[in-house]
């Protein structure tokens, strides 16, 4: 029987190849990994004393308005974007607070989308400096966009991060310079979608202070900026500094006052004060560290050849750029490699040619055996010679 060509091809070429389940699972795993990479996660693990906070002062007028908006992702959707299913469910729960209030300042439109607090409400619980899991947290979502409609740069863009924002909860009656994200076990996760930067900030659960009142503030910079807000010690009231030049917005978080727990709040504050007043334990140096310190302390440009020898394969002449920076890199026979940027400022006394008295170095637990000393020599023509030295053993 003569067979029809079209029918034969249709039958023979019917899709019959099934991908292995593992192959499909692998695709989904890779997608999850990519999502995680897109969502830059930053966690401040240590409580940082407020004394180190940086301040800046630029005087420009800013405006502030409040209005309802509906174009953003919901807090639950924001959590979904970060692959945090548990947090997503928390934002859909009864305890979640949905706000949708927008304020404009310093060329940005900031919207407080919502907040939720509780124990174990995230898939990504972090640990504190003592290795304890921080499971009782408050999570708040804000959307940040440019007032002129220009999209915020994607996290993969070089422009991302050039506009820095410090987003934190604050507690009425507690000095924001001391009590904020950085000092209260805070961190954040953020991503950019459709030109809008979404940030989930998280920190110790402060619902216990609900009777005092909780703020959410967004200001320019990486740290709390004293000039962005005004704090009245007498009343405990915090407000925006209208003459501040950067971003400064402040929302009242409509938290359920019945969640206040004065006893727990007092205990929290005591633990907070104790941690602030406990000095960091000095890093204990072991014998290896001490032997390297001793070796390096005696090294000078004049005697270096007596105690150490150059690794000639790493010797290179580096050009100094207009900012006074010079770059170097090296690769050793054992595969070890390194690179760096040298800032010339102060490296060479009186800018005279010769070897710098400042040596940088690195080593492992083997101490002197694998100690590498980076040596910089200023040449007559203004170039820098870089070469690694190792101890003569």
């Amino acid at each position: 029987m003569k067979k029809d060509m079209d029918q034969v091809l249709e039958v023979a070429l019917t899709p019959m190849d099934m991908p292995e389940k593992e192959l499909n699972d692998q695709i989904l795993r890779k997608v999850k990994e990519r999502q995680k990479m897109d969502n830059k996660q930053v966690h401040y693990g240590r409580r940082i004393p407020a004394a180190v906070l940086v301040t800046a002062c630029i005087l420009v007028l800013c405006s502030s308005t409040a209005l309802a908006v509906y174009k953003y992702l919901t807090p639950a959707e924001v959590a979904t974007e970060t692959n945090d299913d548990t947090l997503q469910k928390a934002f859909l729960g009864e305890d979640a607070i949905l706000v949708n209030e927008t304020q404009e300042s310093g060329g940005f439109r900031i919207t407080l989308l919502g907040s939720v607090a509780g124990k174990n409400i995230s898939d990504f619980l972090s640990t504190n400096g003592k290795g304890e899991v921080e499971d009782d947290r408050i999570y708040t979502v804000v959307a940040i966009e440019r007032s002129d409609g220009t999209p915020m740069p994607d996290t993969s863009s070089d422009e991302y991060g050039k506009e820095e924002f410090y987003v934190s909860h604050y507690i009425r009656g507690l000095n924001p310079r001391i009590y904020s994200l950085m000092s209260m076990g805070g961190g954040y996760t953020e991503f950019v979608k459709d030109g809008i930067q979404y940030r989930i900030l998280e920190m110790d659960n402060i619902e216990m202070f609900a009777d005092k009142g909780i703020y959410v503030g967004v200001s320019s910079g990486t740290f709390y900026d004293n000039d962005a807000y005004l704090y009245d010690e007498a009343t405990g009231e915090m407000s925006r500094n209208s003459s501040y030049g950067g971003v400064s917005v402040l929302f009242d978080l409509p938290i359920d006052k019945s969640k206040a727990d004065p006893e727990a709040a007092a205990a929290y504050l005591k633990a907070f004060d104790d941690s602030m007043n406990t000095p960091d334990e000095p890093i204990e140096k072991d014998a290896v560290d001490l032997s390297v310190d001793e070796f390096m302390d005696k090294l000078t440009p004049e005697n270096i050849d007596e105690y150490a020898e150059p690794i000639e394969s790493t010797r290179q002449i580096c050009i100094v750029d207009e900012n006074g920076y010079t770059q170097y890199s090296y690769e050793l026979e054992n595969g070890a490699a390194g690179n760096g940027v040298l800032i010339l400022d102060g490296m060479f006394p009186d800018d005279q040619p010769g070897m710098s008295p400042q040596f940088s170095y690195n080593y492992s637990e083997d101490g002197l055996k694998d100690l590498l000393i980076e040596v910089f020599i200023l040449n007559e023509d203004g170039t820098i010679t870089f070469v690694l030295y190792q101890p003569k053993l």
Partner: protein
Amino acid sequence: MKQEELENYIYTYGKELYSFCCCVTRNRQEADDLYQDTFLKMYEMADQLVIMTNPKSFLMGVALNLYRNYKRKLSIRQRITGVSISMDEIAESIPFEGLETEDMLISREECQIVRMAVAKLPDKYRIPILLYYMEEFSQAEIAAVMQISDSAVKTRIHRAKKILRERLEGLL
């Protein structure tokens, strides 16, 4: 694109895309890579697309572009080693039970012979044949995916069938 959407696309089009990848690459390992990269590319590009009106066509287009890129990279190696077509792999992919329901128009062995004959066609004929018979694309859809004219698609399918008819003389 949300992960659930991607899962849905994998569930809906996975078999068709994977079959296409197997027949295009003629190699299981390369098919796996092509299949995986196609979905990952779709995931990457989805947010840039306003409306994905024809996901299947989009997927095949992505797969085809990726395949062309693979070929460029592999061309030197293939010039040295030659393209090998694994008879076993093609046979493996044809479940006997699946064919029994097709009124036994052709046997499993005959099916294998047809697939081999298609596999030996040059890309310019093999791809339109696969898109037409395996993926049931219209000639216009094939033209769009391959970025050639409708008439070129018609001509290539016609010539491909002519070659196949000659090679499968005893079967047809």
